[in-house]
């Protein structure tokens, strides 16, 4: 049965891609953008760009107003208490690096940082390198066979020496929601700071940072139908106050002379230099667009597509799906077929999916794989996209087997 997406026409790139015979199923990497975002960018650049937080002139005031309005919208989107708890960065990666440098002074040699075995390199390498700089132990929380952090093991491993826990909310490879609440509650009881990598989680349903009770939550705008070059770092006020300033420059400073300077608190103290103004304003437009949709309809649409995807993969012989994906995506390998060969043939047929290690080499390694193919969905995908994928898959496999 055909399952259309009622929102497909809101994303002009989908029709453009279709004219180029491309079926876009790499949404966990980045998403297409709604017309509302294109309009906002064109309005901003077409009506007068200006720098923010600096100038008293009218264009500067308008740009600052639009920029700060997005801070409010992001706070509202995450249910943060106050817009001042939202720091704009250049992406999830730069937000996580900000944390790993900004929190460096909080650690003493011999203390521990806990992350999970499924982390994206962005939530692994900043902590790994911090651990090396400070002589810390990086503790890896193991997974169970379904692709969730093994809670029993994790609660044992997170103890009084754990100073920080950093985990993904939704795996970009396995498509599994992680048992965040239990992990965060436990880590907090042990006195550890908590960081949630929401890069994938934020895209599927509304997330509530106050309910989660994490100290920090990060995500990238571009995966949430917003512009690239913009990231978000949410922090609890007490947690933000523990961050040392890490990048220095314009507008993050209170007073400066040649030898000394004092710095602003968050958020502006962590937004050194000219921020991605248009991008931030664009993110605001994307959030307005998303807020206008019926959230239940979106969740149901995505869930139905995901069921369709899993059914199709399970129906085919020799396909091994990694973990037990719950939504949004599925990664798989095919017995006796090299990922690179299959990816090549899918590309030839205009199917845009991702092949490789998905920036999670240690995870793939622990599964005994050096790569997998990932199909990832967005709200504008429809069942025809999946049909095209499956018939390309069948044709590719027929050639290869």
């Amino acid at each position, binding site marked *: 049965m055909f399952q259309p997406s009622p929102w497909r026409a809101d994303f002009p790139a989908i029709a453009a891609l279709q004219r180029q015979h491309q079926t876009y199923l790499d949404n966990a990497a980045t998403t297409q953008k709604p017309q509302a975002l294109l309009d906002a960018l064109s309005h901003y650049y077409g009506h007068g760009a200006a720098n923010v937080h600096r100038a008293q002139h009218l264009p500067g005031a308008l740009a600052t107003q639009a920029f700060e309005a997005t801070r409010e919208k992001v706070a509202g989107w995450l249910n943060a208490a106050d817009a001042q708890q939202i720091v704009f960065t250049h992406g999830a990666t730069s937000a996580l690096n900000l944390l790993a440098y900004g929190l460096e002074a909080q650690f003493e040699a011999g203390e521990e940082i806990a992350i999970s075995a499924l982390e994206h390199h962005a939530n692994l390498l900043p902590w790994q390198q911090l651990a090396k700089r400070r002589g810390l132990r990086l503790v890896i929380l193991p997974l169970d066979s379904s692709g969730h952090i093994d809670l029993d093991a994790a609660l044992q491993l997170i103890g009084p020496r754990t100073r920080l826990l950093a985990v993904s909310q939704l795996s970009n490879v396995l498509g599994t929601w992680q048992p965040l609440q239990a992990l965060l509650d436990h880590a907090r009881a042990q006195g550890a700071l908590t960081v949630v990598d929401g890069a994938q989680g934020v895209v599927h349903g509304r997330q509530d940072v106050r309910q989660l009770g994490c100290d920090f939550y990060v995500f990238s705008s571009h995966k949430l139908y917003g512009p690239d070059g913009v990231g978000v770092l949410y922090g609890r006020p007490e947690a933000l106050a523990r961050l040392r300033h890490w990048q220095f420059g314009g507008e993050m400073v209170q007073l400066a002379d040649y030898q000394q300077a004092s710095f602003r608190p968050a958020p502006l103290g962590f937004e050194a230099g000219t921020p991605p103004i248009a991008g931030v304003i664009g993110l605001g437009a994307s959030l307005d667009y998303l807020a206008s949709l019926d959230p239940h309809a979106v969740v149901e649409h995505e869930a139905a597509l995901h069921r369709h995807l899993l059914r199709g993969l399970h129906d085919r012989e020799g396909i091994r799906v990694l973990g037990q994906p719950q939504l949004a995506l599925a990664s798989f390998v095919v017995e006796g077929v*090299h*990922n*690179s*060969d299959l*990816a*090549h*043939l899918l590309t*030839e*047929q205009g199917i845009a999916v991702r*092949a*490789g*290690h998905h920036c999670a080499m240690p995870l793939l390694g622990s599964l005994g794989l*050096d*790569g997998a193919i990932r199909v990832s969905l967005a709200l504008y995908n429809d069942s025809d996209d999946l049909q095209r994928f499956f018939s390309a898959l069948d*044709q590719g496999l027929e*050639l*290869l087997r």
Partner: protein
Amino acid sequence: MSLSTAAQEALDSFEQASGWEQRARLLMQWGERLSALSDEEKSDDNRVHGCESKVWLVSRQQDGRWHFNAGSDARLIRGLLALLLVRVEGLSSAELQQLDLPAWFTQLGLGRQLSPSRSNGLNAVLQRMAQLAAGG
């Protein structure tokens, strides 16, 4: 530079190929022509990194002429490697340096395999060859 008989044969068959399926079949057939690498040849030194699949390039220079062999764990990559080797077999360093290999793949209708976003390793292999030819 004139094409060797084998290279001309490759060009003829790819020029006649219509559609992705036929090109893929041809690639796989060409890949089967590569002689298998020994375990010693699959060494770290011969491994070309920057590829999603494993790729090895073995080189040998005799009387000023280059002779290569190559292998991969992926079949279509083996085909691309075979098409590369058939074009460079027996060339001197000077000839190798002058050769426009991307143009060769474009002639074969496989130019897209060299786009920067492709991590199939063909680009890395071309770079390795260029280094060898430059004496690096």
